[in-house]
């Protein structure tokens, strides 16, 4: 049965709660420890981006079933300023916020599927999927 949960990301404590909820979903899906760690770390990076660059937003956690495969989809959405140059934002080392610039590119590497849509002035939506 599909499980869906939407969470607010408005503070750095919410980022911790998102990590814990993603961990719980991954455990319920039977992910191994390394897969759990990868999806939780990716979620932490993206939740922080949503907070720091998007001015806060939401994440939706969804379990997926595709034939015999089970997976976890995370959708991060904000109504922030948007990303003018997505290619550039995905590059390692690129940062507009004083970080290391590992967040977006790193999260992409830790997921099996990665989609990003962003409109300047309207917001950003990032979807990642990790299959078991």
């Amino acid at each position: 049965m599909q499980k869906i949960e939407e969470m607010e990301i408005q503070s750095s404590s919410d980022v911790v709660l998102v990590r814990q909820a993603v961990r719980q979903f991954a455990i319920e899906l039977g992910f191994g420890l390394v897969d759990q760690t990868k999806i939780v770390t990716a979620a932490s990076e993206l939740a922080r981006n949503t907070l720091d660059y998007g001015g806060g937003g939401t994440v939706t956690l969804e379990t997926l079933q595709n034939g015999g495969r089970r997976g976890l989809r995370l959708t991060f959405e904000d109504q922030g300023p948007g990303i003018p140059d997505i290619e550039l934002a995905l590059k390692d080392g690129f940062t507009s916020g004083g970080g290391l610039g590992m967040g977006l590119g790193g999260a992409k590497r830790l997921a099996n599927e990665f989609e990003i849509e962003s409109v300047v002035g309207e917001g950003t939506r990032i979807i990642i999927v990790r299959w078991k």
Partner: protein
Amino acid sequence: MERIPILQMGEFLLVTIQVDMHDRLAMTLQDDLTNRISQTSANGVLIDISALDIVDSFIGRILGNIAKISQVMDAETVVVGMQPAVAITLVELGMSLTGIRTALNVEKGMALLQATVGSSANAQFTATEWDLEDDAED
């Protein structure tokens, strides 16, 4: 205010991170450690992260900052106890923690600190204490 405790052991400071840190807590730890190094003239810092389930780019950056700041203040930092799944994920994330000295566990980290900076009676005493609990893997 929530804080990570910093213990003093001879000329070393010992930090065991046992909670899922939010970003502000990690920054508070960085500031607290800097102040404690200055107050105690510690010449070594050991950070045990064996209870951390993830190290993302932010926590990695804070660990790197602590290592750099302590170096400027004449103290060595060693990070110990990283879980294997965390190490695998960190490398894939693109962070290699360059410039941070690491050891597999607290015993080995203490030995590394002592070999690097420790020579006083306090440090010798600490070494004896840890040897008593030494595991059989060596």
